[in-house]
């Protein structure tokens, strides 16, 4: 499984980052934080906003095919966008 621009496999997902962000805003909202905690929450939140924005800015749709290798382990291989987009020529996707 090789992706050129993808995040590291164990990097937090967009979903988990957004959830954390909502959580941070929620705790900021509760007003129960000390000033220090508020500032930390805010800074962590802003870092997440930045990273989430980077994810969204990724313009290229990435498509991959998932199969099992000879040992039965999941294996992905990228599918080129151009091939996929070539609808007229072939009735089948080039998986």
């Amino acid at each position, binding site marked *: 499984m090789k*992706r050129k621009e*993808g995040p590291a*496999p164990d990097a937090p*997902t*967009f*979903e988990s980052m*957004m*959830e954390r*962000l*909502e959580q*941070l*805003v929620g705790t*900021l*909202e509760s*007003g129960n*934080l*000390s*000033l*220090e*905690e*508020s*500032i930390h*929450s*805010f*800074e962590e*939140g*802003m870092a997440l*906003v*930045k990273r*989430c*924005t980077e*994810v*969204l*800015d*990724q*313009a*290229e*749709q*990435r*498509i*991959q*095919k*998932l*199969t*099992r290798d000879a040992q039965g382990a*999941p294996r*992905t291989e990228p*599918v080129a966008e151009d091939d*996929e987009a070539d*609808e007229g020529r072939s*009735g*089948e*996707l080039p*998986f």
Partner: protein
Amino acid sequence: MAGQRLAPKDPDGHTQTLAAKDRDGRTMSARRNWGAAARFDPREGEPHVYTVGEIVAELNALLGGEYPSITVEGEITDFRAHPSGHEYFCIKDRRAQLQVVFFASQPRIRGVQLKNGLAVRVTGTITVYEARGSMQLKAERVSPVGFGALQIRFEELKRKLQAEGLFAVERKRELPRYATRVAIVTSFSGAAIRDMLRILRQRAPHARITVAPARVQGDGAALSVAAAIRLVNDWGDADVLIVGRGGGSLEDLWAFNEEAVVRAIVASRIPVISAVGHESDITLADLAADVRAATPTHAAQQAAPSREEARHKLHQLAVHARERLLREMQRDRRHLDGYRTHRAFREPHRQVAEGRQTLDNTRDVLARALEGWALRRRSTVGSASTRLRAHAPARVVERMRERLLELRRRAERASITDLAKRRKEAGARARLLTSYDYRGVLRRGYALVWNEEGARLVNRGRNLRPGEGIRVQFHDARAEASVTRVDPSTEEETP
């Protein structure tokens, strides 16, 4: 075709030929010996005349004996359900039809509703209904075939899985709201995958789509789909999983009614959107999925938020976070402002006022004392002057007057000094009170930073130099520290 072999003969002694057609319309011929002694007319040459009842009864016995239990397949037509529970209908194929009577006393298959058009297999005996003289199949069992059979399997499996709670609403998970990793189990030929990829490319080009190909119709389709669902789960790198295919006949969609697929969907750790066929097709996979999409296109729309939606949400959260923090800081500032106008700060004024009052008293007392002193002096001086007038020069009086003035000035100076002193004291007391009251604020996370001597508050970090000593005042302790590094704040740069 078991049964006694009879050799019917007509009165001319010819063997009768019975012709019948099987369901494909081929003619079956059989020569039969109808020779039943009881029915043989003793009068030679005379044709035997049956009563209607006789012949019908004979045929009944004959057919019953010849076809004690047969199974006939055909499509139901002219269906009539009688209030008594008996059901009457015909089964037909392209060439012929046969009347069927299905008495209420016969067991029914659960969930099977007989109706016109349903293909069935009817097992029973062929009889002649004597009152009408018509041949009919007296059914003991009627079971659907083909589509009907699928329908029954569907109903049976649905009941079974429902009883296990697999379709329960409580089982349904919410879809992730910010999915960017979309997995799809479907065939990679056909329109469904194209539609989904197109929609996802338009809406969420940032999303990463992973297709686990599966056979979605024909032999082994259910197992293939189930295996692909398990594969995606084994792999696990997805927020949401779409399982489906495009439209087709009920038989085409059948894999999605199989137990293997339902169980794989139920076992999926990744929330599943089902997207099988069209809006009107509801499969067991749809019932088991967390969310049922009417079509694959619809599934793609539900799988991931559009980039614009996600951007908007992100922006909202950022704005919200900043507002909250600002409000938080403003609240703390108001807290401080509160203290500023609080007793601690009002105290000095009061003290000054009090001091001023004391001072005024003092001044009055002094003034009175001075006045008395001056008066006394004056009277003394007066008497002295009268006494001395003869021998003392006027300058002595003059000197005395000057001393008096001097004394007055000193008294006034003294009172001014007193005022300043009191004012200073009041200030010190106010500062003490203030610092005491600040502790509440310090407890919230503020610390005061003093310079090395503890004389001046450091309120601009930029002016600090590495190596410089500072004193940090917490609500519960003071610490002496030295600056190791100074990084100018980047607060303004955050979005």
